[in-house]
């Protein structure tokens, strides 16, 4: 619980690492150790960033990517959790569906790119589809495993005190798997953010992935780095946001051991 404390040390140390890295990078470029044609200087990246920000394109790309991840991820959770619950509760359903779910989970979502373009063309839909394919199966598996692993004593206690049906689901089954579900949400949200970049490179006309691809085509390595930095920072922020879910008092038991 104490690892996230905001102390001066916890802020200054990582910040120091970034500053030192940028300084080293600057001098590596300045002394020609890194060839100017292959690696932009920090200053070039900064001006590239200012240029993109001024034109407003960077902001639009960020919004486009976040929107796709949001829709694909929410769809995957909304459909994956119920299916996972169903598989966790019924052994028959597990036997029937687990091999298929495992198959699709092992299949790289990027392998769907050609079909995504064939079916949905270019734009939001193919990216959303790919994110869905990346997030849906891991969520199903995590929920199914979590439900199947609920200690039997909780169900006995619930029975002793007359919990049935909907109440049993809302007050026992769901809260019992919450810690594991939240962990799986963090992982799959991370994967979704990876996938959207790849999807937009090939099947997009905007978004951060497209920004990367466009910078490459325009031979603008400075913009390439701008895109990479923005993608990385947003990925970290997304995870930090989802970590907040683990602060909910009724799920803390799953993490404080």
């Amino acid at each position, binding site marked *: 619980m104490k690892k996230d404390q905001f102390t001066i040390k916890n802020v200054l140390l990582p910040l120091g690492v970034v500053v030192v890295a940028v300084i080293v990078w600057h001098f590596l470029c300045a002394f020609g150790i890194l060839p100017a044609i292959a690696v932009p200087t920090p200053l070039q990246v900064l001006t590239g960033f200012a240029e993109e920000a001024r034109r407003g394109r960077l902001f639009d790309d960020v919004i486009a990517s976040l929107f796709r991840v949001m829709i694909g991820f929410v769809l995957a959770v909304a459909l994956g959790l119920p299916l996972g619950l169903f598989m966790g509760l019924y052994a028959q359903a597990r036997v029937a569906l687990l091999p298929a779910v495992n198959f699709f989970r092992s299949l790289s979502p990027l392998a769907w790119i050609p079909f995504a373009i064939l079916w949905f063309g270019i734009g939001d839909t193919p990216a959303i589809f790919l994110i869905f394919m990346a997030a849906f199966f891991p969520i199903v598996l995590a929920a199914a495993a979590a439900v199947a692993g609920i200690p039997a004593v909780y169900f*006995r*206690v*619930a*029975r002793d005190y*007359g919990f049935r049906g909907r109440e049993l689901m809302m007050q026992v089954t769901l809260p019992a798997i*919450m810690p594991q579900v939240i962990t799986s949400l963090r992982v799959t949200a991370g994967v979704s953010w990876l996938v959207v970049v790849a999807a937009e490179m090939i099947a997009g006309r905007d978004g951060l992935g497209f920004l990367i691809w466009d910078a490459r085509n325009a031979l603008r390595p400075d913009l390439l780095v701008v895109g990479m930095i923005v993608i990385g920072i947003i990925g970290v922020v997304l995870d930090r946001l989802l970590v907040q879910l683990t602060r909910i008092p*009724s799920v803390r*038991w799953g993490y*404080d051991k």
Partner: protein
Amino acid sequence: MTNKMLRLKGVSRSFGAVEVFQNLSLDIAQGEFVAIVGPSGCGKTTLLNLLSAYDQPSSGTIQRGGVLRMIYQEGGLLPWQTAGQNIAMSLRGLPNAAERNRQLQELLALIGLKGFEGHYPHMLSGGMRQRVELARALGGDSDVLLMDEPFSALDYITRLRMRQELARLLHERPRTVVLVTHDIEEAAHLADRIIVLSERPAQIRCELQISLPRPRDLTHPEVVNAVHCILTELGLESRESAQPQMSYPIERMSVFMESEEQS
């Protein structure tokens, strides 16, 4: 006899080829505290499962009167609910929210955990958790407590405290108790009647009445004697040493007692 007694009549239970009970009969009167001891694997927990109707006998009948509540070894509290919410599970039958809250506060006071209502189980010590379990089992006017080695996960000192606590709670809120335990000392410390089961297929090997009122001293001669009787019955002590002899010199005795308290 009232209708709030427990009665097993000719109960047999087998799992496949394994016969756990064969023609077992047992009457437990209302308000009686019965402890069931026996070699491990003899079917003590199966007996509780039968009594609580979680499991059904292969043949024979079981009569139960009143509301039965099970107390589990550990981890019977729902970890995503606070201590208060866990206890309130037993008060769900009450239609009136104000009355539910009044009884909840009463139970919290009874177990000395007023102010811990909002704590989650993982924030409480093992002893506190078991007290919450007890409060939950007592709530909602239950009649019978079925306890499956309720204190076995606790350390020795806490276990002794919990026995006193249980004796006190039963004084305040009398209940019929069936305590399954492998801890013979615990049985002798608490129960009005101790039933010693044999190896599988389990049958009642002997019964022992202890009329000493609770709370009892663990070292009271009658308790010590009961422990001796059961151990002898299980073939773990010899009959010759019927009167345990304390032959320690006085100085050594005091050292002995101090070190025991520290442990």
